[in-house]
């Protein structure tokens, strides 16, 4: 996971935690806000009760005055205004509280006061004429205990904002002697009331208490409530529509509640309101900035929240650091792992090279042995070497493939391929082996399979080879059936689904072993199958390849009876023409192959081979000897470059791994040279690196192609056919009867002899061999006679002898000798004995050299003589040794070796006493009845 991703996830988690905390806090806050608002409202109600009590108390005091005055009137001793106000003056406690007695029937609303006018100490009169205070005089209660309160107004006597508690009194009009009604007012400065409010604030520092009347006019005016009217204030600073406005008025003047509004500064504020109990004309408003209310809300521990956030940040930072530290370590570990992997790759590459290089020598030289040797025994050994070598190469390839798969570097490279050709290779590979084991190899190939498919031919071949090889390996008797069918895919008209299955009548697989079938390095039923070679990688590799191609191997098996391995694979189709009868195609293919293998020489072509290992150069040269291609060799890059500049080549084979200057460096230097006749010449890489993907490396490096070591002669010849100029390739005559006649390899190697030409002159291989033999038989005698005629000065006979030599030499393809002889013959015919004698020594030298080169023909001849009557008789000693080997192989359950040994023994003729035993051994092997072998070997008689 990338570092950034982890940090992002960390941050998201952090954010989620914080989000949760904040949401939770908000919820709690909201709940708490509600309860805080409720508490504030309760406080308002409490304040209202206190204020009401206060007002009622003040009203009560006013009522006491009024009652006294009224009782006096009721008692028949009504007080005059002066007496009444004098009484009030005495009764009141505070100097700031005024008593006003106003005559209600007086339009000027005037009367007398307990206090003199501020402007005139002798003037006790008071007038409310200019103060609009008694509009609703009728609504003033005459009952005791009911608060009758004015709005806040300016006391006309002292200019102080005041409120007045009122009650009606009956007084005596001195002038008329009649009783009159007057309004008694207990006038108090509003500040007195406001002072009481200070004690109501409680815990709220910025709380402001206001009292308003029904019209919104203030009795007590809080500082923050601008405007002289609360309702106007609301309207001014809150964008309320008429409905909201009226609703607000209705709410405030009818019930207890709380509302949030905006003050003159645009700040949120909370106002709790409640009507003053027992007075439906006054309403208490408690104002508080919403911020303060929130501040009193301590539900959310912001410190805790802050610390949690900080903690999370620290944790994130710490995580990041730790992550970085681990990343550094991981990077180091990854680097180390990469280095190890690189080392592994290097090791594999080196191993591949190092094993393949000696293997090249082994198999190459072995190939030479196979070609040159006429001894059956040697050839048999050599065949074994080839088989074992190929097996070893297969194992190395498997390991390389598996490593590649593990490293994820195995690529599926799709190419167009001839399906029949792939089948050829598969059948070629397996059919022989199956036949060797006496197994019936059945083919069931759908003849409508498209001719050219698109897919990774090499991997598919590898998969099927693995399955087929396993089938052969684990089947003792019976048959192997290779089926290939196909079906069309509707959704993909350009593709088909190949259905491949291989059924055998082999040992089968136990159900419990099914699971380990495709596990690398695991071989099922190991104890039973240990004699069967393999790494246990084959099926695993096959399964991996199929997985890469979107398929898998299915297995059906019955232990002891056989198995069927099958898979389906989608392949693109390039040509829907059916492959037709495959067997026929196969045979045609073989015929074609044989043709080209045996028909091509290119004596006019010249190639350069570069390899730092001399034996590789030898192997290479020998492999191509039959083609007559002229080969120059170089054992270093520099040497190759020198030749590249000097001579014209048709192909250059360049080894990749060389000391000092490797193949790629050499190629670059070569391509950089302008002054060379080889500008467009194809350069083919020789490499022991068989790791997949190398082809691309070499092509990218500028090579035209590559061939792996050990060099497969077929592949090499195919490359030559591909890259040599067509005009330099000689196609031999159509098949002759003796095309199969054996011509020893050394004949092809004699420089002064052009065997191809000789075969042509002699009209076939067998004739050629007979001619050669007669040439050789007569040679020594002929040479002696030439010397003899020369010494005798018999120019005529000498000339005849030289003529014969010319003809026979030309006949066998010894053109140079023939030409030389022709010149001497001409001199002889001209009677120039002296000049003839001068050239004769050289002629005889060349002649004897050729004879010497041809002498191995005698040995060959002897060998063939020996086997003429069938097989060589095996020595008793060899029989004993072979039997001991067989017993050992049986003890180690190495049945392959048993088979091999028996095959070798088949090439010999057995003494009669041992014939029966040998036949019994063969039968046991054919029947996979290996247990019987030790018993047969221990029998006293055959």
């Amino acid at each position, binding site marked *: 996971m990338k570092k950034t991703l982890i940090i992002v996830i960390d941050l998201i988690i952090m954010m989620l935690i914080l989000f949760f905390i904040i949401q939770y806090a908000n919820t709690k806050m909201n709940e708490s806000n509600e309860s805080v608002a409720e508490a504030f409202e309760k406080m308002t109600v409490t304040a209202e009760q206190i204020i009401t009590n206060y007002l009622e108390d003040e009203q009560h005091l006013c009522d006491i005055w009024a009652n006294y005055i009224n009782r006096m009137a009721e008692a028949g001793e009504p007080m005059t205004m002066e007496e009444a106000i004098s009484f009030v003056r005495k009764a009141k406690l505070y100097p*700031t509280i005024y008593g006003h007695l106003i005559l209600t029937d007086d339009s000027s609303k005037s009367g007398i006061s307990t206090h003199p*006018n*501020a*402007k005139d100490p002798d003037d006790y009169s008071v007038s409310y004429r*200019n*103060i*609009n*205070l008694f509009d609703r005089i009728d609504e003033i209660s005459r009952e005791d205990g009911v608060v009758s309160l004015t709005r806040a*107004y*300016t*006391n*006309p*006597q*002292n*200019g*102080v*904002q005041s409120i007045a508690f009122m009650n009606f009194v009956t007084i005596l009009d001195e002038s008329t002697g009649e009783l009159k009604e007057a309004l008694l007012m207990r006038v108090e*400065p509003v*500040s007195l009331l406001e002072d009481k409010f200070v004690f109501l604030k409680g815990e709220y520092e910025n709380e402001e208490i206001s009292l308003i009347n029904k019209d919104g006019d203030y009795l007590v*005016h809080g*500082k923050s409530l*601008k*405007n*002289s*009217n609360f309702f*106007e204030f609301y309207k*001014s600073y809150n964008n309320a529509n008429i409905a909201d406005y009226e609703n607000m008025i209705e709410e405030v003047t009818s019930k207890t509640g709380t509302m949030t509004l905006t003050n*003159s*500064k645009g700040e949120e504020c909370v106002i709790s309101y409640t009507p003053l109990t027992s007075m439906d004309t006054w309403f208490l408003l408690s104002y508080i900035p919403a911020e303060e209310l929130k501040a009193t809300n301590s539900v959310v521990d912001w410190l805790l929240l802050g610390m949690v956030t900080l903690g999370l940040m620290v944790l994130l930072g710490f995580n990041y650091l730790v992550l970085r530290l681990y990343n550094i370590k991981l990077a180091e570990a990854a680097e180390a792992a990469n280095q190890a992997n690189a080392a592994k790759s290097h090791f594999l590459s080196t191993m591949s090279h190092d094993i393949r290089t000696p293997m090249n020598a082994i198999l190459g030289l072995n190939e030479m042995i196979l070609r040159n040797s006429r001894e059956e025994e040697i050839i048999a050994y050599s065949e074994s070497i080839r088989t074992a070598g190929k097996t070893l190469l297969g194992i190395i390839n498997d390991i390389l493939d598996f490593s590649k798969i593990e490293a994820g570097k195995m690529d599926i490279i799709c190419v167009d391929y001839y399906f029949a050709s792939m089948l050829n290779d598969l059948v070629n590979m397996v059919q022989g082996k199956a036949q060797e084991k006496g197994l019936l190899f059945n083919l069931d190939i759908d003849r409508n399979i498209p001719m050219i498919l698109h897919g990774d031919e090499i991997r598919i071949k590898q998969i099927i080879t693995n399955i087929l090889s396993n089938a052969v390996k684990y089947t003792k008797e019976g048959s192997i059936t290779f089926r290939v069918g196909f079906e069309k895919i509707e959704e993909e008209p350009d593709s088909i689904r190949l259905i491949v299955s291989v059924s055998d009548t082999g040992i089968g697989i136990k159900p419990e072993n099914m699971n380990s079938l495709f596990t690398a390095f695991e071989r099922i039923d190991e104890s039973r199958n240990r004699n069967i070679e393999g790494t246990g990688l084959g099926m695993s590799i096959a399964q991996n390849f199929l997985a890469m191609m979107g398929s898998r191997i299915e297995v059906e098996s019955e232990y002891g009876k056989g198995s069927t391995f099958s898979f389906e694979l989608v392949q693109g189709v390039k040509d829907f023409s059916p492959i037709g009868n495959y067997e026929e195609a196969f045979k045609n293919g073989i015929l074609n192959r044989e043709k080209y293998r045996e028909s091509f020489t290119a004596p006019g072509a010249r190639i350069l081979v570069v390899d730092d290992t001399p034996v590789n150069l030898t192997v290479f040269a020998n492999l191509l000897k039959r083609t007559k291609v002229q080969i120059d060799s170089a054992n270093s890059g520099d040497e190759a470059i020198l030749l590249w500049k000097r001579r014209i080549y048709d192909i250059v084979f360049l080894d990749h791994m060389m000391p000092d200057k490797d193949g790629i460096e050499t190629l670059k230097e070569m391509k950089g040279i302008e002054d060379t006749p080889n500008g467009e010449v194809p350069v083919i890489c020789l490499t022991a690196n068989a790791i997949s993907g190398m082809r691309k490396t070499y092509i990218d490096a500028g090579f035209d192609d590559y061939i792996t070591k050990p060099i497969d002669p077929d592949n090499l010849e195919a490359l030559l056919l591909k890259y040599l100029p067509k005009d330099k390739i000689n196609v031999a005559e159509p098949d002759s009867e003796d095309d199969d006649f054996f011509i020893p390899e050394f004949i092809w190697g004699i420089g002064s002899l052009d065997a191809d030409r000789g075969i042509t002159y002699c009209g076939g291989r067998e004739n050629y061999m007979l001619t050669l033999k007669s040439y050789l038989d007569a040679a020594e005698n002929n040479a002696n006679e030439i010397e003899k005629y020369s010494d005798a000065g018999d120019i005529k006979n000498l000339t005849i002898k030289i003529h014969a030599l010319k003809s026979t030499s030309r006949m066998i393809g010894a053109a140079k000798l023939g030409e030389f002889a022709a010149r001497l013959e001409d001199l002889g015919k001209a009677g120039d004995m002296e000049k003839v004698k001068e050239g004769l020594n050289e002629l005889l030298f060349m002649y004897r050299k050729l004879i010497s080169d041809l002498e191995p023909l005698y040995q060959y001849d002897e060998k063939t003589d020996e086997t003429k009557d069938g097989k060589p008789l095996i020595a008793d000693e060899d029989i004993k040794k072979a039997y001991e080997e067989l017993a050992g192989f049986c003890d180690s359950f190495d049945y392959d070796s048993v088979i091999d040994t028996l095959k070798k023994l088949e090439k010999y003729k057995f003494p009669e006493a041992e014939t029966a035993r040998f036949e019994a051994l063969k039968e046991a092997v054919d029947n996979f009845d290996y247990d019987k072998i030790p018993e047969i070997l221990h029998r006293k008689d055959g």
Partner: protein
Amino acid sequence: MKTKGILKNTLVSVSVISLVSALAACGGISKGDDAEFKPGLPSDTTCQIKVAGNYSNFESLESEFERFYEYYPNVTLNYVYLDDYENTISSALSSDEAPDIYVTGSWMLDEEKMKPVFENAEILSDPALNINLDCVRKGARWTLDNGDVVMLPIFTRSYGMLVNMDIFEKNSLKVPENYKELVETCDKLKAAGYENPIMGANVTTVAGMYYAFSFPLFCANVIEHPESVSALNSMDKSAGEMMRPALEKIKTFVDEGYMNPALCSEEIEDDYNAVILRFFEGDVPMMLGSGDMVSGTQKRESKSEAFIADPFKYKFYVVPSGDDGGYFLDSVNLFFSVNKNSSNLDMTNEFIRFLMREKELGNMSAVKRLITPTNDFSLDEVYSSLDDFPEDRSFNNREIGLNDDVNNEFRAAAYKVANGILTVDEAVSEYGNLWDD
């Protein structure tokens, strides 16, 4: 008829020299006066300041309180409305709860009973107070004869007309600048289908249409004939001739159908609310009225359905009743005085110092939509026509020297002539007996 003795004794018109110097000073500082207020007291000073006045509602002042709190957050400023202000302010000033700042008016200077009000007033021209009096324009200044300043103008008003700028723009008309253009404009408007180019309240008040239309013209005539002031003030019948030019123009406008008193009475019930709402109907090119009418427009825009549906641009202009243009009658609406016995005099003076700046006075006027006492009319576009108004056509009542009775007589004459109750000649000849209580 109030005596002019006090006025004469305590106040003299600003001398020409002081006028010139003040003008220079004002001109010099008017544009540069917006320097940031620099508090002179510790910002954590805690005290309460009370402002008393006769406005039941004083939002524009409250907005200044808020601005002042930015410098002195612990100061509490309160505005208190006093009932029967005229009678209670002097008592209030001597009470325990005396205001620190209180509203005064020019009329108070003439009233004997108001004497205590000014006895309690602090001399604000004391250089030690560092109050910038120079930002007040010439016509709005009130100075005692000894040069002391005890009243600071806060709002002023004038008389003129609201012009529906959209109608003028739509008809490609420019606002007339003299009487001739006014007549031509009225003709064009009538031709364009505006049957009543000029409307207003058909009443005798100062907010009525005739006062705004012709009183400044009458004043200009009086200023040209200063010898007539005495005769006019003493209700000398012969002085009635001074009204003739103004009355004749009224008569002309009525006769020409530019003004229709009967229709105005029918459609405009009062001289304030109804005038404004009728103007907002959007079909009156010119609506005559006082500065109070302009002040009332702000809150009534949202109350006029017609204006909400089809708002238009409008501005205040003086009526171009003279041959060279209109006359700007500068009238201070409201003054502030400071209680010299204030227990928080320093902070009170600090507030006054804060307030007496073009910016704050302009803000207050803009909130109230009255005319600022300074020369900077930029804060309210409605009054932008007053910017750079010619000095020779600006005057105030104090300069003219006419008493309220003359004012009443003229308003009665104008009303009666306009409504056909009297001819111009009759009105002129009946000077002194025109006003009916």
